[in-house]
């Protein structure tokens, strides 16, 4: 009788042990399965914010997943309307002078070095380079640096450029 009782206890303990292990694994399984079913991919933005810093750190150009952004000429005394100017990770300068990346030679209201556009981790940013007549985004004057979104109209001198993304 004692023998029977002790085997029963041992069996119950064995069953409990297995139950414990099964529960432990079910918990792990549950966590790992839900972790794999994440509703979105993690953000791939580079931690290094500016392309210049990324180049200095030896990281090369930004993430290939970044959207292609370009400026489209809407109104200009010198450039063709509808002309496209692509932006990449290198900073671009705009102005009347020939050393700029986008030369606005016929625009009398643009300064020699007027504004700079650079791609940061979150998109294009425009910075006014102490121009005489200022840089405007959607009619508002840019102070310091400002983020550009798709559809924004950038005015430099008498030139209007539309930001397009795809």
């Amino acid at each position: 009788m004692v023998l029977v009782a002790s085997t029963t206890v041992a069996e119950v303990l064995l069953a409990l042990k297995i139950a414990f292990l099964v529960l432990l694994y079910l918990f792990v399984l549950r966590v790992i399965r839900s972790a794999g079913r994440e509703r979105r991919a993690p953000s791939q933005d580079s931690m290094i914010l500016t392309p210049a810093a990324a180049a200095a750190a030896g990281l090369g150009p930004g993430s290939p997943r970044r959207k292609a952004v370009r400026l489209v000429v809407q109104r200009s005394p010198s450039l063709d309307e509808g002309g496209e100017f692509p932006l990449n990770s290198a900073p671009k300068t705009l102005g009347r002078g020939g050393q700029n990346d986008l030369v606005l030679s016929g625009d009398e209201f643009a300064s020699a070095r007027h504004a700079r556009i650079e791609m940061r981790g979150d998109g294009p940013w425009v910075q006014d380079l102490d121009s005489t007549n200022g840089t405007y985004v959607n009619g508002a004057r840019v102070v310091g640096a400002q983020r550009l979104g798709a559809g924004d109209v950038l005015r430099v001198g008498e030139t209007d450029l539309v930001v397009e993304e795809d």
Partner: protein
Amino acid sequence: MARVTVPLADPYLLPMAALLTAIGVTEIYRLGPAGNAFRQGLWIVIGVGVFAATLFSLHSDYRALERYKYVFGVTALVLLFLPRLPVIGEPINGARLWIHVGSLQFQPGELGKIALIVFLAAYLRERREVLAQGRLKDWGPLLVIWGAAMLLLFVTNDLGSALLYYGIFLAMLYVATARISFVAAALGLFLVGSFAVAQGTPHVRERVTNWLSPWSTHPVFCPQNGQMMLRQNCQSYQEVQSLYSLGHGGFGGTGLGHGIFTGTTGKQVIPDLNTDFIYSALAQELGLIGVSALLLLYMAFVLRGFRIALAATDGFSKLLAAGLSFGFAFQTFVIVGGITRVIPLTGITLPFVSYGGSSVVANFLLVAGLMLISHRANRQEAGA
């Protein structure tokens, strides 16, 4: 509490922490004496209190911490230095890690770890561009604080923490600068440094010997009692008994409560069984299957931590989450690797499971940090 303050935080961290804590308390209760489990329970209550207080006070914007980075840097040093003070510090097992206030014992190095991670995250966030260029003068404050931490740790004979701090420092430097050459250089430095330390410090040399050859076939000098003894009966006694414990557990384990931890005299065979060596107790009672589940839990926790780091939108949060997750992972690796003879054994607690108040409180702080970061990242995702 968590639902109110950080409703969008990662939902898996807290259940995992709770399960690990529960396993820990169960094993501590089983190993006895009964007072230990009660004290551990008390510390868990304090830990949860600290957890709630952290969430409550920082849930609006924890990034304010970034402004106080030097406060955290100095706090980390002070916490490391406290056990060296004559009145409240007291050496236990040859290492000065503890402070005593009344009847309370506390191991401030555990909290120092969190403070150091916060400091490193804030500092590296600010300086990572210049650090990546490798100009020497920008490294000043970083090297000073890190060097001081390392020196203090060697002075206090706490090799496990020294290894942990060095690993955290390296990992966060890598996350911040993305320069693998730094990691290679620092690993080289570590190898040279550890070789030199192993030659110079008998404490360290002993650990390496115990790791490479825990059993000796002929008697060797035993520093504890000055006699000639087999190494497994003297220096490597703890390791060897722990290995026997792992072996006795086998594949399926003996079952909770059926492990053998006391000798014929009724004395516990493995010293520090409920703190540093709790993994070998669990391995005996739960077996390979059981501790594999335990390790999977740790991996899942770390996985969640790194996902939070990836999802975080600003540099400080990324670095903080990566640092906290890496610290947690590396601490688990150092102690489990030590017990299973993958690396030389250095005494350190197993997060959430080991007996010890400071460890419990520090780990709940760590979870609070990760939850705050994930809440912020998810809220921005939802708002965008």
